[in-house]
C-alpha cells in the first residue's frame, strides 16, 4: 500500500497528531506557522482526494485493516470529498488572516493553546465528514464541538460575553450531540451495525420499525441543534458575535456545513430507502422550519446594530435555504444544498473576514462606528460589498448560482408559494446589506478618527475569498458538476 492510499485517514489523523505537538510550541509565531502547515497539508490531501473521487469513484479505507462492517471505515465520495475541500480550504485561507487578528484579540500567552484548539476543531470537522461509521461521527462531533467552545471563549479579552456565549453553546451543543448519540443507539438496536453503508442496506428491509423512526427523529433533532435550524439556533448569534473575528469566519464557513452534510448523509444515504418516515419528517418538519428560519433570521438581521451579530442571524437564514433544498427530496434540491454549502462558505467567510479587518482598525463592528469607513478602508469595504452582493444573489457571484438551483428545484415541483417565499426572503438580504453600504459609503467619516487600510496579511485572504466568490459565480461548471455527482451519489446509494 502506498502512502497515497492512506490519505483518507491521514487527512484526519494528521491534524489529530499535530494538535498536541502544537500545544508544546510556546512561540506563538511557530505555533501559527505549524498550524498553517497542517491546514495546508489537509487542504492538499482533500484536493487530491476529490480529484481521485471524480475520476475513479468513491474511495473506501478500512482503519487498521479491519474490513467494513466490523472495523471503522473511512469513505470519501463526491459529497463528502467536496465538504472536506470546503473545510480544509477555508481553514487554510482563514489562518493567514488569523495571525494578526489573534494578536489583537487574544492574550499572548494563550496563542499556542488557541492554535491547538483550532487544529482540533479542524480535525473534528474533517473527521465528521470523512468517516463512514455512525458512532465515529459522534466522537468527532464532540472533538470539534469541545474545541469550538474553547475558541469561542477566547473572545473574552474583547468582551466577557464570549464566556456566557461559550457556556450556552456548550449546554445546547452537548444536548444536541447527546440526542444524536441516542439516535445512533436506537439505530444500532434495530440493525446491529454502525457502518453507514451497512445501515443503509439493513434499514430498507426493516421498513417501518418504530425504533428506527424514533432513532431517525432523535438524529434529525440533534443535528438540527448543531446546524442551528430555526428555532434551535439560539446559541449561534452570541457565539458568532463574541468569538474572535478569525474564529467566527472559520466557524461560520465550516462548522454548520459539516452538520448539514451529516443531515444529508443520514436523510439520504441511510434513511433514503428505509421507512416512509423520511418524507413526512423532512416535508412536514424541516421545510416549515427552514422557511421560518429564512424569514426570522433575515428579519432579525435587519434590526441588529452589531454587524457580526447581523451576519450571524443571516447565517440562520442561509441555513434555512440549505435545509429547504434538502426538503425538496430531489436531485436539483440536493444540488442546491450542496452548492450552497460551498457558496455560503465563500461569502460568509469573506464577509466575516472583512468585518474582522474593520474590527482590527476601528475596534468596533457597531454600525454607527463604520460611518464613512469606505473612504479610509476602501479595499476592505469593497470586499464587503462584493461578498454582500453575493449574499443577496446578484448575478456573476456564487450567491446567484445557489439561488438559481434552489428556485429551479422549487419550480420542478411547481411549488409556487415556495418560490415566492424564497424570493421574498432573499430580498430581505438587500435591506440589511444595504444598510451597511449606505453608512460606510454615503456618510461622512467620524471626525478625528484616523484609520488606515487593514494590513495586507488580513486583506489578501479576504480578497482570496472575494475572488473565489466571483470566479465560481462566473464559471460554476466545476462546482455544479461536483454538486451533481454528490447529489446523485447520495440518492444513488439509497437505491
Amino acid at each position, binding site marked *: 500500500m502506498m502512502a497515497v492510499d492512506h490519505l483518507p485517514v491521514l487527512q484526519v489523523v494528521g491534524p489529530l497528531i499535530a494538535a498536541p505537538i502544537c500545544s508544546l510550541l510556546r512561540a506563538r509565531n511557530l505555533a501559527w506557522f505549524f498550524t498553517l502547515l497542517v491546514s495546508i497539508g489537509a487542504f492538499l490531501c482533500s484536493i487530491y482526494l476529490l480529484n481521485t473521487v471524480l475520476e475513479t469513484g468513491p474511495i473506501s479505507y478500512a482503519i487498521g485493516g479491519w474490513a467494513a462492517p466490523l472495523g471503522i471505515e473511512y469513505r470519501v465520495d463526491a459529497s463528502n470529498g467536496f465538504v472536506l475541500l470546503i473545510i480544509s480550504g477555508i481553514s487554510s485561507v482563514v489562518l493567514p488572516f488569523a495571525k494578526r487578528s489573534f494578536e489583537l484579540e487574544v492574550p499572548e500567552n494563550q496563542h499556542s493553546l488557541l492554535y491547538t484548539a483550532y487544529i482540533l476543531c479542524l480535525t473534528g470537522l474533517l473527521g465528521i465528514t470523512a468517516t463512514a461509521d455512525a458512532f465515529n461521527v459522534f466522537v468527532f462531533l464532540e472533538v470539534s464541538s469541545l474545541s469550538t467552545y474553547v475558541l469561542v471563549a477566547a473572545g473574552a479579552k474583547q468582551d466577557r460575553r464570549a464566556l456566557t456565549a461559550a457556556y450556552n453553546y456548550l449546554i445546547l451543543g452537548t444536548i444536541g450531540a447527546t440526542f444524536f448519540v441516542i439516535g445512533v443507539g436506537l439505530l444500532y438496536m434495530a440493525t446491529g451495525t454502525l457502518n453507514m453503508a451497512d445501515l443503509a442496506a439493513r434499514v430498507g428491509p426493516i421498513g417501518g420499525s418504530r425504533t428506527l423512526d424514533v432513532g431517525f427523529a432523535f438524529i434529525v433533532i440533534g443535528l438540527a441543534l448543531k446546524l442551528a435550524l430555526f428555532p434551535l439556533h439560539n446559541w449561534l448569534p452570541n457565539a458568532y458575535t463574541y468569538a474572535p473575528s478569525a474564529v467566527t469566519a472559520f466557524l461560520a464557513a465550516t462548522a454548520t456545513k459539516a452538520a448539514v452534510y451529516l443531515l444529508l448523509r443520514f436523510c439520504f444515504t441511510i434513511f433514503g430507502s428505509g421507512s416512509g418516515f423520511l418524507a413526512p419528517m423532512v416535508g412536514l418538519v424541516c421545510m416549515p422550519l427552514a422557511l421560518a428560519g429564512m424569514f426570522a433570521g433575515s428579519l432579525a438581521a435587519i434590526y441588529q446594530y452589531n454587524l457580526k451579530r447581523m451576519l450571524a442571524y443571516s447565517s440562520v437564514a442561509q441555513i434555512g435555504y440549505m435545509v429547504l433544498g434538502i426538503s425538496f427530496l430531489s436531485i436539483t434540491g440536493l444540488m442546491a444544498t450542496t452548492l450552497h454549502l460551498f457558496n455560503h462558505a465563500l461569502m460568509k467567510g469573506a464577509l466575516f473576514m472583512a468585518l474582522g479587518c474593520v474590527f482590527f482598525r476601528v475596534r468596533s463592528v457597531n454600525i454607527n462606528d463604520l460611518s464613512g469607513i469606505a473612504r479610509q478602508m476602501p479595499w476592505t469595504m469593497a470586499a464587503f460589498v462584493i461578498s454582500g*452582493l453575493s449574499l*443577496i*444573489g*446578484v*448575478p*456573476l457571484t456564487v450567491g446567484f*448560482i445557489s*439561488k*438559481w438551483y434552489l*428556485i*429551479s428545484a422549487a*419550480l*420542478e415541483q411547481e411549488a409556487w408559494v415556495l*418560490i415566492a417565499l424564497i*424570493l*421574498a426572503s*432573499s*430580498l430581505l438580504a*438587500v435591506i440589511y446589506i*444595504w444598510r451597511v453600504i*449606505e453608512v460606510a*459609503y*454615503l*456618510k461622512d467619516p467620524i471626525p478625528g478618527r484616523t484609520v488606515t487600510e487593514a494590513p495586507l496579511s488580513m486583506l489578501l485572504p479576504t480578497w482570496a475569498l472575494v475572488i473565489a466568490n466571483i470566479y465560481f*459565480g*462566473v*464559471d*460554476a*461548471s466545476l462546482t*455544479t*458538476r461536483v454538486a451533481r455527482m454528490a447529489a446523485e451519489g447520495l440518492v444513488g446509494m439509497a437505491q
Partner: protein
Amino acid sequence: MSMETALLATLFLPLAGMVLIWLTGNSPNLREGVTLVTAVALFAIVLSLLDAVMAGASPGLTLLEVMPGLELAFKIEPLGMLFACIASGLWIINSLYSIGYMRGNGEKKQTRFYMCFTLAISSAMGIAFAGNMFTLFIFYEVLTLSTYPLVAHKETEEAKRGARIYLGILIGTSIGLQLAAVIWTWIAAGTLDFTKGGILADQIEPVLLPFLLALYMFGIGKAALMPFHRWLPAAMVAPTPVSALLHAVAVVKAGVFTVLKVVVYIFGIDLLAQTGAAHWLIWVASFTVLAASLVAMTKDNLKARLAYSTISQLGYIVLGAALANHYAILGGALHIATHAFGKITLFMCAGAIYVATHKTEISDMQGLGRVMPFTFGAFCIGALSIIGLPPFAGTWSKWYLALGAAETGMIVVVAVYMVSSLLNIAYLMPIVARGFFRPSPALATASAGAAVAPAKGGIQEAPFFCVLPPCLTAAGCLVLFFYADAIIALLRPIVE
C-alpha cells in the same frame, strides 16, 4: 477588426475607460478627456457594426458557460443594434454636457461619477447585444447596481432616500419576479436563447402564459409599468446628466428594450397574438400611459414632470409590445429612438436652467425664455417631438403605434394614443409658453429663491457645454424625422 472582436470591444472598451478614469482621477482635464475619447471610440465601433447588420448579418459569440447550458453569449440583431447606437451616440453628447454641468455646479466626487457612468454604459452594451435572456438578466442587474451610486451622488438624506427607493424597486422586481420568470422559461423551454418566433410555443400551457408574461412585464422594473414606476421620479435626485442619459435613455430604454426582446424573441409575436396572453397588458399599459400623463400635469418640479412624462412614454412602447403585431412592434422600437432624442433634450435643458439660475420649479421659470433663448428653443423642439408633431421624429413612432392599434381593431387603444398626445401638449407646452411669453418676475418683484437672478435684458445662458448638447439633440429630432426610413429598414427583419 472582425465583427466578433468589435462586439467584445463594445463591452470592454468602456471598462478600460473606467480604469483609465480611475487612474487619471487627480487631473480633471485628463479624466474628462478619457471619457470623451472612450465615448467617441465606442460609438465608432458600434457604427462599424451597423452596415453589416443592415445587410442582415448577425454575428455572435459565446464568452463562457456559467452553469451547464447557461452561457454568457452575445449576438447582434437589429433591435439591439438600434439600442446600442442610441446609447453610445447620445453618450458622446451627454459627456460634453456632463463636463459643463458637473463643473458648472462644482459637484464633488466626480471621478466616481464618471467611473460609474462608463460602467453603466458598458452594461447597456451588454444588454443590447445579449444573446440570451440569461446574459441580458446579468447585465440588467449590473446596470441597476452601477447606477445606484449615481442616484445617491449628492449623499444628502433626500438623495439616499431616493436611491433606496430606486434600488429597492429595481432589485426587488428583478430578483423577485424577473428571475423567477427566467428560471421558469429555462425549465419549460430548456433554452434561453433569443430566437426568432419565440421559444415558448408548445412548451408551456397556454393558460399559464399570461402569468409568465406578467412576471416578465412587472419584473422588468426599468420599463416603469405601474405600479412599479415610483423609482423613476425618485431617481430624479441624481445630477441632471444622469437623469438625461440614464433615466431618459440608457436605463429606461434598457427596460422597454428588454420588454420588446421578451415579446419578440421569447414569446414570439404570433404566440401572443394567437393566445391573447398579452391582452391584459394592453389595459395595464394604457392605464400607465394616461395616469402618468395626468400625474405629470400636477408636478411643478420640472424634472419630476419630465420623469412622469417618461413613464407615460415608456407605457407607449409596452403598449406597442402588448398589441403584438408588426406595426406596433416597429412603432415601439422606433419610439425607443425618437423618445430618446426628445427626452434627453428636455432633461439637458432642465439641467442648463438649473446651472444658470438654480431654478427647479416650473412656476419660477417665467420669462426665462427670453434670457435663455437657445435652451428654451431646444426645449420647445424636444417637446414638439415628444408630442409627435411633424417635422420632428416623434411623429413616425406615434404613427406606427397608432397603426398597430388600428390593425387590432381596438379603437380604444387608438384613442389612448391620441388622448395622451393631447395631454403631452397640456403638460409640456405651458413650460415653453411660460418661458417665452410671461414677463419675468425679476423685472417686477425680486424673486426670493433665485440664487443668481438673471440680469435684466441681455442673454444669460448656461455654460457653453451645457447649451450645445441640447441644441445638438434637438437638431437630431429634426434630422431623424427625415431618416426614419433607415431605422425602419434596419428594424424590419425582426418582424418578418
